[in-house]
């Protein structure tokens, strides 16, 4: 091989540069940036479904509830741990997850999704303090 002295170190430098993100991440002390959400402040342990399922399916469940309540005339209730909730974002979800900013927003911001829920529905802070004081 001609120019061995140049090519081999050059290749090593190239490989190091290309794999830089991997080993930098492996050896540096920075922690994972995956969002962590806070559990309900009230200490409730169970949701209507297990946590993984809720994480993956909550948007589908909300859409189903919306159609049930508004269109199909099925404004039933959901019971979790003996407590009865009306179907709905304001009537059920936010009763336990009163920390919208630490619960909903953390993941939504991370995933860069902007659901339009809060254009109309009231956040727990708004529900408690009124619109003017909360904004």
């Amino acid at each position, binding site marked *: 091989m001609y120019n061995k002295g140049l090519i081999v170190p050059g290749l090593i430098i190239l490989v190091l540069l290309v794999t830089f993100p991997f080993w930098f991440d492996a050896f540096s002390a920075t922690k994972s940036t995956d969002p962590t959400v806070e559990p309900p402040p009230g200490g409730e342990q169970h949701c209507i479904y297990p946590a993984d399922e809720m994480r993956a399916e909550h948007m589908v469940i909300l859409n189903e509830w919306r159609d049930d309540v*508004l*269109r199909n*005339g099925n*404004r039933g209730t959901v019971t979790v741990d003996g407590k009865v909730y009306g179907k709905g974002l*304001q009537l059920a979800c936010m009763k336990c997850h009163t920390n919208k900013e630490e619960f909903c927003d953390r993941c939504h911001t991370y995933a860069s999704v902007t659901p339009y829920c809060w254009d109309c529905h*009231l956040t727990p802070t*708004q529900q*408690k303090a009124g*619109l003017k004081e909360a*904004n």
Partner: protein
Amino acid sequence: MDTKRRTFLKAAGVAALAGISAPAVSKLAEASASAVPAVAENSGGTAGKMRYGMVIDMRKLYDRPDIQEKMAAACRYVHNIPTFDDPKSEIKWIWSAPYEQAFPEQSSTHNADVIEESQFILLCNHCDNPPCVRVCPTQATFKMEHNGIVAMDYHRCIGCRFCMMACPYGARSFNWFEPRPHIAQEINPEFPTRMRGVVEKCNFCAERLARGEKPACQVAAAEVGAIYFGDLNDPESEVRKVLAENPTIQRKPNLGTKPSVFYIV
């Protein structure tokens, strides 16, 4: 050969004409067979179906603008309705208007003084044959089959305002502005607000009825007992009894919308 060229050409001409006109003839025949008026299906069977309706006894509200305002205020609170001073942008679920505006078809030159001087309380008529539902391109407004309420799904409304054009009663309002800063009263934490760019209207308090409560305006007018509410399809219901005992009028009945709100004047 027997066939002369002349007769052959005649026969060919007739056959060609028949061939060309056959599709048109069969289309015409089809059309006349299915020429049943489209409106008729709405007046179909009512068995087992509910249809909520309201009777407003105006005799108890004639000189009571205070009660009418109380009804409107109750509705504003329950549904987080904003208040706009400009009549072009105001949001109306329940409102008051003079007789000639409320009942333009029934007005006459010599009405009773009390009718001329009073305001009439108006709201969505929750028509049995609602024109707003017919024009909605997204089915954001629809008639609930199980109780007859003309409801709205604000999630779907694209703000085209066809329904506002279609409604002959002015019962629909458009949110020209972000409504939240204009909610003057205390907020009802159990009900959402709306957003800019959607149409809104009275929902007959569907959310309260589902909880077994009465409509908010009926509760607000309870001290004079001016509002009766119930199932128009149930002959034993209170509204049907009131309707049977009192002469009532509806708003613009000749349009064929079949309003569910009746007035005793």
